[in-house]
Each structure stands twice: as C-alpha cells, then as structure tokens.
C-alpha cells in the first residue's frame, strides 16, 4: 500500500522521494510557495509529515535530499553544494567540513551516506567541465564522555604524584 507524502503548503503538487531508512523516515524534495520553481529538501516521518530542511546560502533555490542512514543523517545538495543535515546541527555545507579537498574542487552533491557516516557524491571543478566521484570518511571526534574520562584520569595521575613529587 502506498502513502502519498504530499507537498509543502503552497507547492505545485510535486514531490520526489529518494531514500528511506530502517525507521521509515523518507527524504527527497518538493515544491513550496516561495519563488517560482525551486525545490525544497524534505524529511518525512510517519505521523509528522514533511519537514523543510532549509538551504545553504545561494540563489539557485534548488535543494534536494538524496540519502539518509539509520542514524538520521541526511545528505543532498543545496544551491549546488553538498550538504549534511542532522537534527542537532541542521544543514551544513560539507565543503566547510572537509580537511583535504584539493584546490579548485567543490563538493556539488552528496548522494548517499552509510551507517558509518561515510558520504559519497560528486565534486565539480570551478569551470563546471569536470566531475569526480568523492568519498568522505568521518574523522573521529572525541566524545564528551571521552573528554570527562580524560580529565578524570589526568586528575588521578596528578594526585598519585603527591605533593613531594618533583
């Protein structure tokens, strides 16, 4: 049985679903009442309907979500730049998060994200003539727990040295 995900209020009745995760959260894009003909990236969840994921700065008014993983991370393109969206941090430009992107390349769109957070998509040169597949691999981030543990262990180490230690 199919479910009509609908469209944004004021839209032209056009929506496209691209991916769905284990929890039946669907991502894609649709039209809304702003502008003449742009697309808005959405996240759809049973019982909650469509959520507009927003947009990166730009004038194209073309925002599309293509992939979602079971962690709820969503990837896509917004105004010709690849993005990642999370509930905690919203939409972020992946170009600003990559540490070693070669000069002259822009991550244009992100098509998929796996359960380890790896993201694939297409990068493009400034002249728009050449495209390259890309794979982004997360750089592990120390968690808050890890930081607390580190501070605690450091304190224990200091106390064991004692007041007379050199």
């Amino acid at each position: 049985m199919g479910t009509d995900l609908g469209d944004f209020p004021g839209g032209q009745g056009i929506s496209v679903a691209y991916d769905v995760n284990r929890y039946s959260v669907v991502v894609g894009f649709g039209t809304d009442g702003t502008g003449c003909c742009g697309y808005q990236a959405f996240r759809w969840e049973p019982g909650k309907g469509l959520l507009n994921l927003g947009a990166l700065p730009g004038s194209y008014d073309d925002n599309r979500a293509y992939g979602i993983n079971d962690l709820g991370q969503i990837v896509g393109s917004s105004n010709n730049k690849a993005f990642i969206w999370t509930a905690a941090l919203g939409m972020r430009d992946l170009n600003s998060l990559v540490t070693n992107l070669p000069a002259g390349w822009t991550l244009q769109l992100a098509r998929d994200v796996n359960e380890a957070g790896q993201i694939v998509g297409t990068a493009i040169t400034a002249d728009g003539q050449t495209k390259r597949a890309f794979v982004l691999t997360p750089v592990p981030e120390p968690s808050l727990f890890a930081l607390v543990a580190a501070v605690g262990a450091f304190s224990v180490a200091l106390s064991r040295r004692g007041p007379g230690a050199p």
Partner: protein
Amino acid sequence: MRIWLMVLLALFWPRAGFSAGYTAVLLSGDTGFSSSEALGVNSRGEVAGDAFDFPSGGVGFVWSAQSGYRYLTANDSYSQTWGSGITDEGVAVGGAVPVDGGSDRPFAWMPDGSSLEVPQPDPSYFSSLTAINPAGLAVGGSTIWNLGTSPSSVVTHLTDGQILGIGPSGA
C-alpha cells in the same frame, strides 16, 4: 602507564557516524577517466558509481580503499554501464546501454564479477536499477524486483510513477 593508555583510548574512541570533519578521496578510475560520479555506498565503505570520457562513454565501478576498483562490465551487446547502489554483500545494481541504441537495461553485478541482466516487464522502457536493500529487493523505473530468487522476479510493477529508493524493511 595504564591510566595514560585509558586516556588515549578514550580520546580517540570514535562515535559511529559523528565527526568533527571529513577526509576526502576523489575517484577517477585506474586509467584516469575525465569524469566520474558516485551514487551509493554500503556499510563496508564500498562505493558504486561510474567513470566516463566524452564522447567515448563510461563504465560502472565498485571501489573500496582496501580493494581498489572492480569494474562493472556487461557482454558485447552493451557499450556503457553504471553502478547506482550496492549491498553490504557487494551486489551492485545499475544499468547498461545497448550498442544497438535500444533502451537502457537494468543490471546487477555479483561480488565474483559476474553480471545479471534483469528482465523487464516492458522492455521498451528505458530502465535501470537505482537501489537495492539488504533483502535483495531492487528498484528502478516503476518496478521492484527480487534479486534473491533465481531467476530474479518482479515483485511490483506500477502503471504510473517512479521508484527511486528502498529501505531495509522494503518500504
């Protein structure tokens, strides 16, 4: 010493999927194709995509950091291929272009390199496979196939609309 080991372990223990940043690898194929694109990635980091030159055409690939490139080839009746999705078992799906100029055809490629042309309900349609889930259900055009059966079978064929993705549960 043990405490400092714990400190280092705690500091660098990764939280799955969340990071402060990313490292990028750009893929252009072993022979340096002029362009390429990546469309799918599985939980083992295997990437499905295609690399191409204008106007000669392109070839689908599966790439991983451990194994490099595995090209998705079809028989001599097809001039170009591409990969769109891949399961955790390494089954890639995508499409191929016939040399006689006919409609695109849906294909799957097994981890051993063998290819499978998936039968279409209506061969006159342009069609390819765009995604596959862990159960072996693959989608493309207006159709859902079960690639886990032999031969592969059509599960659903819509008279209207297009199916672009499929989740682990088949939704």
